[in-house]
């Protein structure tokens, strides 16, 4: 893997720190009066999601992290692992529960996801921005109430719980924004 000098630092660059891949969120060159210049960076740990600050001596080099984002289709979950397939060569990969984390609540099968690979191993999964899911449980709808703006919880077929308007009925198909976890609209039956 290539190494990067501090003058190549920029947001989005993936580097190795203490053996763990990190994503640079912010980078600023600072220089106290007349002295050594430093690069102050905020980096996000790609395994834990935690953000920390580090200061490098300007001119130092850091090893790059072998991080690749790949579009893969979600197949199924066998209880201990989540199975994804590369649709161009049909190769399959297994992602752990830790790697899939919150993304799992939106997946029922067939969705194209962005899988982040570190040294070829999945470490994170992003679901599609929008998914269409059926409600398996919610309180009975309040007919005609489309104006008051009230909401109620609804459990989706994947187990996710979403706040929906009061008029929505159990069994409905909904479009949901996975980035916010919010209801967008009703979806048509296929």
């Amino acid at each position, binding site marked *: 893997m290539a190494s990067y000098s*501090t*003058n190549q630092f920029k947001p989005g660059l993936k580097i190795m*720190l203490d053996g763990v891949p990190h994503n640079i969120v912010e980078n*600023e*060159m*600072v*220089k*106290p*009066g*007349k*002295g*050594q*210049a*430093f690069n102050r960076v905020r980096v996000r740990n790609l395994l834990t999601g935690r953000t*920390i*600050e*580090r*200061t*490098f*001596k*300007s001119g*130092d080099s*850091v090893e790059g992290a072998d991080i690749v984002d790949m579009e893969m289709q979600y197949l199924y979950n066998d209880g201990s692992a989540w199975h994804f397939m590369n649709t161009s060569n049909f190769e399959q990969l297994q992602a752990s529960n830790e790697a899939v984390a919150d993304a799992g609540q939106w997946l029922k099968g067939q969705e194209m996801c962005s899988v982040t690979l570190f040294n070829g191993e999945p470490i994170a999964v992003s679901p599609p921005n929008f998914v269409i899911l059926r409600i398996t449980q919610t309180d009975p709808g309040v007919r005609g109430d489309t104006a008051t703006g009230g909401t109620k919880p609804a459990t989706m077929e994947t187990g996710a719980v979403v706040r929906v308007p009061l008029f929505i009925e159990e069994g409905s198909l909904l479009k949901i924004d996975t980035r916010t976890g919010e209801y967008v609209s009703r979806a048509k039956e296929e």
Partner: protein
Amino acid sequence: MDWRPTAARPALLARAALLQQIRQHFGAAGVMEVDTPLLGLTGAADPALQSIAVPCADGTRYLQTSPEFAMKRLLAAGAGDIYQICKAFRGEEQSRLHRGEFTMLEFYRLGFDHHRLMDEVAQIVRFALPQRSLERLTVAALAARLACPDPHLADTATLADFARGEGAVLSPADAADRVLLLDFLLEHLVRLGLGSGQAAFLYDFPLEQRAYARVRPGAPPVAERFELIIDGVELANGYHEVTDAETQAALFAREAALRAARGLPPPLLDQQLLAALDSGLPPCAGVALGIDRLLMLALGATDLSPVMAFGRDLI
């Protein structure tokens, strides 16, 4: 093609007005404006500065990182109080607050110490920032205020532990480099204690950060150097100057050793400066002030581009 200036006309006017006020101030005070070469035979000796080398027909020349050495030769030749407004060049990384070429005000006052010089710097800063009052505090006082290690007294291991605890990524060589660790501490102190909304002259530096400032004996001895920091931005750096050739030569040797330890190219020592000091530099204090940064603060900008005519051509 984006050919337009990055500075709007009001910013250009503010720059012109500030330069005029500075010239008026020094004219009234009897300080002579001088004009020294920007291309020199030697580059900076300071390990933290990188000179830009220029290939010329008769050999390599260096764009000056400041007019300091040339102005000291004028002082040694009896020029009296002098000032210069010129371009200075640095080969280091560029940033929001750093450009490879920038405008510097440098001046020297005979018989001044660093405190009298701070008074005059404050007068000049007031032309651009009339509302700001400038505190004065020592580096040790700022460290104590922020419960950080005392930069004069802490041993190198303590400084390294402190830096690591604050997120510094240090190689074993870095952890033994006391100057580097003090630079880290200073950056930390400025960021925590003199950030947005703060304005202060920081003075009396540890000996390792004396640059070319005189040392005042005491317990601990301190370097009579100051930095003006406003809103976390370093605006000026001044010294009660070293005037004897022997001390200056020792400081050059120390910088050369530090360059070698850091794997940097050795500096070409300015022999003309040493010869000038040998013939006698009058007791004086001198300071360099960043005109672009002062304008940036005056106009409430957070980047140098809006105060430089063409602030983004090179970055």
